[in-house]
């Protein structure tokens, strides 16, 4: 049994128009995706802006109404809990948000921010609570004095670590990390990614790791799904996706990653032009007549590609 199993998930946003504000159409932000995440595993969710990554994450955590599909957590259908903040399911799944500057309430002390999920789910005495918060801060490398400060007193990386401390307060089994390091500098990013890996080992955590930075995804994820127009175009392990991409969209994405070796520049350019040509020429073979992504076909054990 997988820790998380998503079956044919769809999330449509209504487009309203006319004087009556009737629904005149839908934005199909997520349009039929299925995947599983095993305990302790990291699944990378990659795709261009607007492809539906955040919507997927929010639907799983219950912040977005599901149009269709099923979400099983540890085998239990939890679609019914969606929107209910205090459900037992919400204990097991937490989220780290992209925007480190607005995701922490500026008026609350770090103590209150980190303790909030504890207060929702457990009844602790003040002393017990403080002890737990200190432990959590220690795990993310912050000193106990941190607890009485306010978010604005911290750097971006420190704030993101406060967000992580809050997310792990209830010992979740899955964390949805939506672009957790996109706003951070290289060395701060390194620090947060290291903590995320440490915590993962410590708690046997699984991550749904959302990012558009393929270097970061490569570093963090064992399995990767490539999303385009609300659907998956390809899914596989790191090896499959980076060294043996099959879908033209994935190929173009991988070809666009800058090479860290300046002497390979010409080579990279030639390869990129080649892929780009192939993309223009064969686009229609990879998308339906209506420009939609096909259903996934199994290529090998772990490698799925959207082909006709």
């Amino acid at each position, binding site marked *: 049994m997988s820790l998380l199993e998503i079956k044919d998930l769809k999330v449509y946003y209504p487009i309203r128009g006319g004087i009556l504000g009737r629904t005149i159409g839908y934005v199909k932000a997520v349009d039929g995706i299925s995947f599983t995440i095993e305990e302790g595993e990291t699944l990378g969710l990659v795709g*261009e*802006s*607007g492809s539906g990554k955040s919507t997927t994450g929010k639907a799983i955590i219950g912040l977005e109404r599901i149009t269709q599909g099923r979400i099983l957590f540890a085998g239990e259908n939890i679609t019914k809990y969606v929107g209910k903040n205090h459900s037992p399911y919400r204990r097991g799944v937490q989220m780290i948000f992209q925007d480190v500057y607005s995701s922490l309430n500026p008026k609350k002390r770090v103590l209150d921010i980190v303790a909030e999920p504890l207060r929702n789910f457990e009844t602790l005495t003040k002393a017990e609570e403080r002890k737990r918060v200190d432990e959590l801060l220690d795990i993310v490398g912050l000193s106990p004095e941190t607890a009485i400060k306010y978010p604005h007193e911290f*750097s971006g*990386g420190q704030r993101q670590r406060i967000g992580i401390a809050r997310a792990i307060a209830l010992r979740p089994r899955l964390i949805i990390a939506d672009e957790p390091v996109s706003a951070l*500098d*290289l*060395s*701060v*990013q*390194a*620090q947060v*990614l*290291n903590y995320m*890996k440490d915590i*993962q*080992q410590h708690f046997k955590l699984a991550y749904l790791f959302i990012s*558009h930075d*393929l*270097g*970061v995804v*490569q*570093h*963090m994820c064992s399995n990767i799904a490539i999303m385009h127009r609300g659907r998956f175009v390809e899914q596989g392990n790191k090896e499959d996706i*980076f060294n043996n991409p099959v879908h033209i969209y994935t190929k*173009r*994405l991988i*070809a*666009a*990653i*800058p*090479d*860290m*070796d*300046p*002497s390979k*520049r010409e080579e*990279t350019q030639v390869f*990129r032009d080649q892929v780009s040509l192939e993309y223009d020429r064969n686009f229609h073979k990879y998308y339906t007549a209506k420009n939609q992504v096909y259903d996934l076909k199994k290529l090998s054990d772990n490698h799925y590609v959207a082909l006709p």
Partner: protein
Amino acid sequence: MIEKELLKINNLVTSFRINGKYYPAVDGVSLRVKENEVFAIVGESGCGKSALALSIMNLHNPAFTKIEGKIFFKGQDLLKLNLTELNKIRGRDIGMIFQDPLTALNPLMKIGAQIEESLTFHTNLSGKEKQRRAMELLEGVGIENPSLTYDQFPHELSGGMRQRAMISIALACKPSLVIADEPTTALDVTIQAQILDLLKKLQKEIKSGIILITHDLGVVAEMADRVAVMYAGQIVETADVHELFSNPLHPYTRSLMASMPSKASGDTQEDRLHVIQGMVPSLLLQKRDGCRFSPRIPWIASYYHEENPVYHEVRPGHHVLCTCFRHFHFKEERRKSRVIT
């Protein structure tokens, strides 16, 4: 063929007034950019990259900013020009791609009109020709439906599209120097590749010089001819791009490279990225004597740092600030793995 020098900056100091006192954000920067050259400036947030870029165009608010030093563009000292003279150069000879597209675009003007405004100011194309050129430019930066975007306001565009619209304005007059401040930071990799390609093409076509400001070492490896690494307002290392990537020397450069996730990192669960101890100090707290990076590598004995760090030319064109690089090793490495002479 000898490329002509486009821009020469000598000992630039840009200071901001905070509570009545001036604090330098750019502190003694000298550099040269030749025609047809991509000069990259890398460094983390707050090290002074944008402050440097805005100084070249003299775009800082004079009430709060003091700029000292010399900035020669094609032999002309930009800091001595009056506003009319400057405005002629801005846009036509020097194009600027700003880090934040929303502040750079006029919110009340359609994108097409903004491009044409620049063309009106600096060229004498007819109305029809300007419109055609505007469409061409929008298409060139990878906007899928140029005639639609032409008629849209900035707020109707996504972040990536805004960035591209601004780039098309900066390139409208084919400037001989382009200052690109994080031109692709907010964009997806495929669009990033497209925009970098566009900059390369422009450069081939009109032999512009490009100052490319970024914190992405991958973009540097891909685009730059020469690189300057900036830390706390100073250039700590500068070299040809091949030299810098094969032989990085300054402790800051080496630390940055080690903190970068890559193909090789992350293969095992135990793989950890290098973390630079401490953080970039704010302008008010920055120490200004001795080696500015020394607080972040405290395991390197203080006598290895110079009291007044100077540049050392280790190979032709490769300059490193301070002597500590000869004794630097990562904290987790054993002492003295290599001594560079």
